[in-house]
């Protein structure tokens, strides 16, 4: 080892471990992506580049329906969760402490704390009642469940943005003859927009990714992409699962990159 200049922050071996960790983190994902373009019938043998499994997945009506269902649920849940989370964030930040504030925080963040499997069985029981009582079997149950567990993910970036916002801006608007509603429309909302968009994107990603709660809440024939994949894996790993995974992965990375750029741009 050549002699190195003293660096207080360097700890021996740490950089090596870190590099290995990054490699180990990405190697399986990259393998999955690469094999999704594999022409061979087996997942183990490389048979040359092809779009074959994407075609197979695309032509499978079950996959197509699951994809559409996933998008409908994720979009609805993101819209609902972001709307109610924005209102809650406006209600709970930047005002004097009030009675019940902690209770509101606990309920909003509850989905982050309760194990998913517990919520899943609770909803299984509860929605089974309602299904019997009303006879309604539609996507509403999944949308409601997804909206609920997406709320904290939408709430946190919106609240962070609000807390970072200068209160004197709205005071200034009021001073310049804006009514409370005008001040909200013209000052608060435009400044809050990046937080709201970030929250909506996180909610969308979280909903798109959910397996456990969906698996328990869905009625027959209501598979989303993740629950469809879970069912497939239980039988045998087929290469079209790799293709679906890669497509979902790409969507997540695109949304995350957008989120990253959006939250970084704030001054």
């Amino acid at each position, binding site marked *: 080892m050549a002699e190195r200049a003293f660096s207080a922050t360097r700890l021996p071996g740490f950089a090596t471990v870190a590099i290995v960790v990054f490699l180990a983190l990405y190697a399986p994902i990259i393998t999955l992506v690469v094999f999704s373009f594999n022409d061979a019938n087996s997942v183990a043998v490389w048979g040359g580049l092809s779009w074959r499994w994407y075609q197979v997945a695309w032509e499978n009506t079950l996959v197509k329906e699951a994809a559409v269902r996933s998008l409908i649920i994720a979009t609805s849940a993101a819209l609902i969760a972001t709307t109610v989370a924005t209102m809650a964030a406006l*209600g709970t930040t930047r005002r004097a402490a*009030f009675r019940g*504030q902690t209770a509101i925080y606990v309920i909003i963040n509850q989905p982050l704390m*309760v*194990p*998913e*499997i517990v919520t899943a*069985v609770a909803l299984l029981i509860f929605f089974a009642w309602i299904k019997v009582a009303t006879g309604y079997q539609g996507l509403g149950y999944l949308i409601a469940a997804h909206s609920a567990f997406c709320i904290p993910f939408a709430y946190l970036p919106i609240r962070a943005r609000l807390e970072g916002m200068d209160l004197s801006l709205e005071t200034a608007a009021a001073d310049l003859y804006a009514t409370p509603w005008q001040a909200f429309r013209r000052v608060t909302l435009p400044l809050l927009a990046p937080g709201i968009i970030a929250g909506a994107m996180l909610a969308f990603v979280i909903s798109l990714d959910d397996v456990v709660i969906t698996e328990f809440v869905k009625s027959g024939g209501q598979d989303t992409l993740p629950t469809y994949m879970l069912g497939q894996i239980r039988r045998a*790993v087929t290469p079209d699962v790799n293709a679906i995974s890669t497509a979902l992965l790409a969507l997540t990375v695109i949304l995350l990159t957008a989120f*990253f750029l959006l939250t970084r741009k704030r001054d």
Partner: protein
Amino acid sequence: MSANEDRQRAASTRTAWLLSAPALVVLILAASGPLLIVLVYSFLSPGDYTGVQRPFTLEAWQSILFTRDIFDGTLQLADAHLSIFWRSVKLSLLTTAITFAVGFPTAWFIATRPAKSRALWLFLITIPFWTNLLIRTVAINEVIRNEGVINTLLIRAGLIDQPLRIIYTDTAVLIGMAYVYLPLMVLPLFAAIDRFDMKLLEAGYDLYASRLQVLRRVILPLVKPGIVAGSILVFIPSLGAYVTPRVLGGGKNMMIGNFIELQFGQGRNWPLGAALSMTLLVIVTVALLVYVRAANRDRSHG
């Protein structure tokens, strides 16, 4: 306090509740409220086919730990249940330990990068964090299963004749959980190290400490809040894990999450499933309370 100010304060509180109400309604209907039903179900008897029926009983809670002998009706420790609990706790603790052992150097590495590249390294940790847990489990599955990348490469290289049997073992579940929960350890550790004043290291070395002493006496005590946060964030989902043990552990290597599902499926013992869910919830809540107390203590120390 004038009446006017009281009125303003009351109005502000009312606005806060009104604005929060829609979110609270959604959450109470589709997340918090149904938990109470689970609690009630845990005190009922299993239905004839599915579901529950009267009478109210402590049977389900008792059967978490004990089984009744078919012949003489005496209570015995339920070995099968205990082994599932033990596996869940053991795998969760090991997952926490492994993710800390490799996550701490990783977090340190990221925090000591120059400001420009730091954001990129952090982003690289964040992508897996937000990537579908199922996809990541599938990816690990691709690597370790019998016809997976590792076995194919090793057989092709002539190092082994028979594939290494990793899949459907506790080891597979452990590898999988460490893989999927690692970002949950790295992110809070990074946050703590990022707050850490690097000048303190120079002060430590200036006062004759070795690298190991600096690590043990200066760094670790100061980033302890991050260590506690990371450990809790990994331990809690590990304990409730469902997808990873199901895909990588096969049918036999169950954890509590799979065991709960079993009661609502083939097991047809909803009360037991409900009691198990409540037990899991209590353990997680206790872990969170320990964390909150530790975090508050650290904060009050400065």
